[in-house]
């Protein structure tokens, strides 16, 4: 047993309101530079949608992640053989047009415009060439299902859905959406690290953050291909790749990353997970159906005396072990089992888990009932839970066809196609809703609430704890970050504000493009 600690995350999708505040916080701190304009280390996608870069989930196009090969696994589009053979020209490299050409507007034209009969216009100009361009694409042009025929319809997760099921999803009355905020997953089996020919990318032993050493990066650009989440970006100006660094200067000081700190919906949780590094290879190579289970089995119980002893023997600090015991991630993922990794089938063993969204699934519309009976009495707040929130578990999960967002679609994203697994999580979330409704509104009987909880193997205390961490949790409960015992050292050398705008921290010279 080789116990290490890992900074892990949970994003609660039911709480995400799609405001992009996380994205803007990240952009302002890290990627507001030449060559990095197109990089969105944090982005929020609308689902169904094609995401950023366009159709990133479709590995037939991008060849990212790992695939089974014999008893082991190999990188799909990079790796030792494919990577070195393709080093002069990488056929699987996404190019700027798969993202979008970064642009700004000539705002000065508005100010300097002479007096004239027509309104002056700020023309869009490319941030690459500086010339006027026709904007073809932006990083989130499919927001809120805009341009559905072009974007949402081409969502790679729809591939296993029958045409009828797809049609049902996009009927105007049935249309539903949810948001998928994404950052780097800081994987346990990172494909970017494995693909880097120069060995510039590494995983930090202390907290598992995956970083790119900017002095070692030689622009062989294999990481861009290998990362199935397309979260490594090539800076065309400096000739180096860059990626999300989990705001390591902040987490080392015990502060939440900027995206999480600024999250308006408070959907984000960050904490320590103890894991057994010896189990990674086996878990990553397991069969598709066992993949998620063996992934989650890597994480160890931080209360187990044996695990604690092994962690201490391995040099894990006491403060880190204490943080692991209070970790909100451990509760969501292991104790309550309501969070799942995104696209486990890529086999990188990501450390970002999602509580799947319940609302788009639950809000099934029944046209007849809606028109014949008044659903919500505006004064009495009498809820007819038959049309909007059908609180009887059996009928909701009885027929998948009734759901606005087919389970199969959700399963393609969060459970490697396993519909039972995702249904299990959604049932739990629903049971907690029923329980809380019984508590607060009281129109659901105690018996029904108890049955609902029993059906999903949750105790009342657990339901209360889930409710608390989901809805009421304060900052310190959502972010349990142990100090890295390095923060004083860094603060002694430099002020983080002084190096804003540089590529990471610790350069002696200003980063500039090579000759």
């Amino acid at each position: 047993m080789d116990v290490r600690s890992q900074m892990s995350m949970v994003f609660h999708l039911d709480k995400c309101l799609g405001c992009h505040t996380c994205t803007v916080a990240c952009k302002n701190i890290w990627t507001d530079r030449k060559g990095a304009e197109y990089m969105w280390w944090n982005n929020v996608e609308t689902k169904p949608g094609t995401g950023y870069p366009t159709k990133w989930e479709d590995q037939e196009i991008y060849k990212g992640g790992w695939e089974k090969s014999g008893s082991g696994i190999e990188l799909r589009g990079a790796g030792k053989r494919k990577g070195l053979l393709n080093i002069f020209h990488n056929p699987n490299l996404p190019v700027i047009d798969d993202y979008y050409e970064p642009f700004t507007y000539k705002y000065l034209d508005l100010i300097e415009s002479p007096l004239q009969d027509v309104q002056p216009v700020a023309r869009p100009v490319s941030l690459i060439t500086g010339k006027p361009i026709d904007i073809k694409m932006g990083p989130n042009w499919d927001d809120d299902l805009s341009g559905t025929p072009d974007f949402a319809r081409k969502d790679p997760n729809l591939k296993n859905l029958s045409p009828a099921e797809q049609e049902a999803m996009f009927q105007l009355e049935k249309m539903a959406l949810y948001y998928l905020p994404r950052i780097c997953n800081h994987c346990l089996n990172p494909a970017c690290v494995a693909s880097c020919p120069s060995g510039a990318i590494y995983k930090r032993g202390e907290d598992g953050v995956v970083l790119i050493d900017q002095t070692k990066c030689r622009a062989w650009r294999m990481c861009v291909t290998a990362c199935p989440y397309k979260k490594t970006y090539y800076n065309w100006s400096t000739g180096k790749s860059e990626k999300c660094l989990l705001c390591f200067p902040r987490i080392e000081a015990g502060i939440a990353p900027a995206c999480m700190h600024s999250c308006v919906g408070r959907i984000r949780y960050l904490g320590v997970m103890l894991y057994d590094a010896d189990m990674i290879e086996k878990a990553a190579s397991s069969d598709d159906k066992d993949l998620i289970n063996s992934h989650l089995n890597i994480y160890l119980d931080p209360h187990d005396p044996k695990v604690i002893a092994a962690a201490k023997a391995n040099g894990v600090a006491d403060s880190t072990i204490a943080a692991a015991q209070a970790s909100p991630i451990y509760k969501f993922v292991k104790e309550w089992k309501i969070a799942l990794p995104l696209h486990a089938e890529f086999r990188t063993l990501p450390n970002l888990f999602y509580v799947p969204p319940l609302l788009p699934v639950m809000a099934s519309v029944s046209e007849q009932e809606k028109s014949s009976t008044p659903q919500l009495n505006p004064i009495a707040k009498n809820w007819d839970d038959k049309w909007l929130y059908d609180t009887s578990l059996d009928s909701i999960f009885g027929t998948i066809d009734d759901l606005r967002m087919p389970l199969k679609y959700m399963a393609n994203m969060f459970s490697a196609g396993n519909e039972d697994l995702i249904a299990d999580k959604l049932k739990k979330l629903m049971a907690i809703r029923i329980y809380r409704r019984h508590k607060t509104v009281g129109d659901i009987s105690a018996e029904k609430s108890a049955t609902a909880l029993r059906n999903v193997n949750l105790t009342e205390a657990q339901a209360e704890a889930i409710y608390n961490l989901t809805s009421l949790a304060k900052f310190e409960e959502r972010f349990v970050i142990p100090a890295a015992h390095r923060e004083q050292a860094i603060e002694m050398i430099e002020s983080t504000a002084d190096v804003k705008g540089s590529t990471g921290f610790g350069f002696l010279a200003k980063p500039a493009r090579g000759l």
Partner: protein
Amino acid sequence: MDFLLFGAFPYVALVMFLVGSIYRYKTGFKYSSLSSQFLETKKLFLSSVPFHVGILVVLLGHLVGFLFPSLFLSIGGESLVTFEIVALSFAFAAIVGLISLFIRRATSERLRMVTSKMDVLIELLLMAQFIIGIWIAVELRWGSTWYASNMTPYLQSIWTLTPDVAAISAMPLLIQLHIIGAFLIVFLIPFTRLVHFLVMPLHYITRPHQIVTWYWDKKKIRDVNTPWTITEPKNN
């Protein structure tokens, strides 16, 4: 004059190459192949691949001829013709790739943004060097043989710090130009993107896939018997 060009300049070039490359490496950030594939990928395939394969084989040929001249001298008759044709075709691949790389850069607005003056200069130099080289191979026949018998001694004399200038002074102008061009390129390497050949990722073949880095010895620092203040802090 000949002494300056063939006796002194090679040393200036080699010293500049060594010192410059190491200095640039030590200062860190600027070692990169500066790939432009992200901005343009379609035309790159038919230019970059033939250029790289071509120049690598041609360079390897020059190196083998320098290190093992007897190997080249032993080739004769029909196999000499075949050998020269194969070698020449790689040179042609390289020059064709180089020219289309040049056209690619010249015609794309985006690529012009990531093209420095040095890029243009080194590309023109390489082009000239290849044209002269091919010209020599065609004009002054069976180069692989006389390279091994006449050029290798000169290169070795540079290596042993006794440059044999007289031997080169007697050579045709084309060959003299090719030698000057070669050392000029060597001289310029530290100032161009060519440095990326020095960091060829061959170590990737033997390296384990995953890399985990620890700031300090993870066990030593937490050992109760040795307080961490004893371990010298590494970053200040």
